[in-house]
């Protein structure tokens, strides 16, 4: 164990100390920060503050619309009303547009028949300004619906009550199972694993190839077992990736915490993760990462150059992507035979077992078994990788064919 630790420590420190690591670790949070600041600026614009004019023969409609646009949910516009307009109005408004005194005007032509809607014509200063147009459309819908409802004899308080947004809560007997948040968590887990494996799994393979070219392995093998070296590399190089991801996630959480909390408090996003779910998330994420890194280690042991490695890139993420097909049947029946079998396949365990845990509590022995199976697989993969590595490097120095690979496993 000491050797694994020493190897891992060296890999970790050597990598973390490089400028490339520093730059890439800092760049992403900076970009994220920039993005947030940018979207804040955009966001304040999105709550449209345009200055517009409404031209309408129907004084009531124009005032309602003005009210909605000036004090509505997502707009704070300055609205002038001209009622009614004449032919000179249009010319005046057009020249105001050109002088940038106005962002646009809405021309309302009353309907020919009383039961039809009037027609609306929106003339913006810039056609790219879709936010203002959007706000106006929403406001128009609200105003028209309210008008029609009141026209049909409904009291205005009832209208307000009717137009409240609807909120649906999901509860399951005995368990606070929230499918939406389970689903969100499983997608987060999937994309996190996918990203981390793609970004960093290959680093493990690369560091093993590097060891081949530098020939240091021969010095190392005089003291330690190839398995120890492989394990050390997977842990060391993997930790570098995890460090980086942790920094990024932490920044992301810090940067968005304000709006996230606001969203949760506002009831728009309803997240409920138990402590148990968070623990299993971490456990399965780490085990999954180790497992896939071990596959990367085996790939690295097989090839001699980065180019050859590129061709094998897909092998690494294919099993993970395959799990996505199993999501739907598992969600619909998390305790069914299919779900139970798939969740015990080590390559699928991190996603599927986690999904099962968050949907319905599987028996403890199944959870324990899945973890044991994953650890055993990681060990087996490392063992195979070290075999391929040692035999390949000490004897041939070329990429083996499949029959040769099998033969090598028998060598000692």
């Amino acid at each position, binding site marked *: 164990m000491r050797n694994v630790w020493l190897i891992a420590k060296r890999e970790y420190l050597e990598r973390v100390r490089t400028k490339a690591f520093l730059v890439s670790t800092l760049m992403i949070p900076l970009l994220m920060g920039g993005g947030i600041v940018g979207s804040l600026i955009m966001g304040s614009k999105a709550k449209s503050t345009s200055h517009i004019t409404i031209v309408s023969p129907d004084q009531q409609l124009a005032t309602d619309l003005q009210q909605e646009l000036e004090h509505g949910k997502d707009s704070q516009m300055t609205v002038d009303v001209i009622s009614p307009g004449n032919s000179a109005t249009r010319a005046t408004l057009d020249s105001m547009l050109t002088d940038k005194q106005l962002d646009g005007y809405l021309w309302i032509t009353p309907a020919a028949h009383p039961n039809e809607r009037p027609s609306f014509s929106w003339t913006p200063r810039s056609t790219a300004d879709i936010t203002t147009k959007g706000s106006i459309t929403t406001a128009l819908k609200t105003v028209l619906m309210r008008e029609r409802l009141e026209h049909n004899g409904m009291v205005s308080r009832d209208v307000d009550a009717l137009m409240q947004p609807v909120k649906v809560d999901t509860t399951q007997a005995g368990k606070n199972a929230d499918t939406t948040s389970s689903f969100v968590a499983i997608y987060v887990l999937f994309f996190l694993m996918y990203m981390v494996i793609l970004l960093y799994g290959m680093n493990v393979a690369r560091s093993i190839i590097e060891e081949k070219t*530098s020939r240091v392995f*021969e010095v190392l093998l*005089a*003291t330690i077992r190839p398995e120890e070296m492989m394990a050390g590399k997977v842990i060391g190089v993997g930790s570098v990736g995890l460090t980086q991801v942790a920094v990024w996630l932490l920044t992301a959480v810090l940067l968005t915490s304000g709006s996230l909390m606001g969203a949760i408090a506002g009831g728009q996003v309803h997240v409920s993760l138990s402590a148990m779910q968070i623990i299993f998330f971490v456990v399965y994420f780490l085990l999954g990462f180790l497992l896939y890194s071990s596959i990367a280690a085996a790939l690295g042991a097989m090839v001699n150059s980065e180019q050859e490695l590129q061709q094998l890139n897909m092998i690494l993420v294919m099993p993970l992507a395959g799990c996505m097909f199993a999501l739907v049947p598992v969600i619909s029946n998390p305790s069914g035979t299919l779900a139970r079998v798939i969740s015990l396949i080590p390559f699928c365990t991190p996603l599927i077992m986690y999904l099962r845990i968050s949907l319905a509590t599987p028996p403890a022995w199944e959870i324990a078994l899945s973890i044991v199976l994953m650890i055993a697989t990681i060990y087996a993969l490392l063992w195979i990788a070290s075999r391929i590595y*040692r035999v390949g490097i000490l004897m041939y120095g070329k990429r083996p064919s499949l029959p040769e690979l099998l033969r090598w496993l028998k060598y000692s």
Partner: protein
Amino acid sequence: MPIVELQQVRKAYDTKIAVADLSFRIEQGSMFGLLGPNGSGKTSSIRMMIGMTLPDSGTVSLFGQPFDRKNLHRVGYLPEERGLYKKMKVIDQLVFLGQLHGLDAIVASKRAHAWCERMEITEAIPKKTEELSKGMQQKIQFIASLLHEPELIIMDEPFSGLDPVNATLLQDTLVDLHKEGRTVLFSTHRMDQVEKLCDNICLIHRGHLVLSGGMQEIKSRYPKNRVQMVFEGDASFLDNPVVESAKNYNGMAEIKLREGADAQSLLAEAISKARISRFEVMEPTLEEIFIETVGGRTDA
């Protein structure tokens, strides 16, 4: 007690037999040369000694016990193909390798500094490996294999690629280590180096053992039948009946005597005819012994 013992060791890779039924032993405290031309199986034998590969058949014993990884901390190994982490600082590298051999980081660092001083490369300590010359890198590698003060030192082609000054420095260091009571084994394809350094040798060719034993004992098995002499005057004494063949390079002669002949009679005749400034009965060189033995075998 032999420190290393190989018994009927055999190793084949696919179709090529690298080592065939090789047996030899290395006694404690000896300076042992493993000799053979390129591709004769030296590196394969060494790798089996330190468990990097296992023999197909036969046994390897280290320190009088069947091979056990635990004993690897008592072995210092310098591989033929040098390898260091390019981007790593020399001192970090040495401490890391020392730690892998079970040393404490502080001890490893102290010894690394002492060794760098001894090998005259203190200026390299804070540098990265990639900034160093090849000879310096080799010295670092050499130090790395000795930091944990191993009882058995195994070096695969330690002198290859070194300039004469550094090669001598390494040789002297090996001699010092030997004097300290450590067992030293090194392989080389250059027989002249072994003659100066080793007390015991093993000569292999195409995976087979050709010769093994004490240097003096081996040499005494071969007749001293060559004479080198420098003279002035009449060269007719070269027709003496004890001479099998002779080459005369204008006053410097290389003579091969008949089997069982005594050089004294030749010397007597030479004195009577010419002025002798040097007359030496030569020991056979290892190279000659090798060529004679291997040549005889391949003919057979």
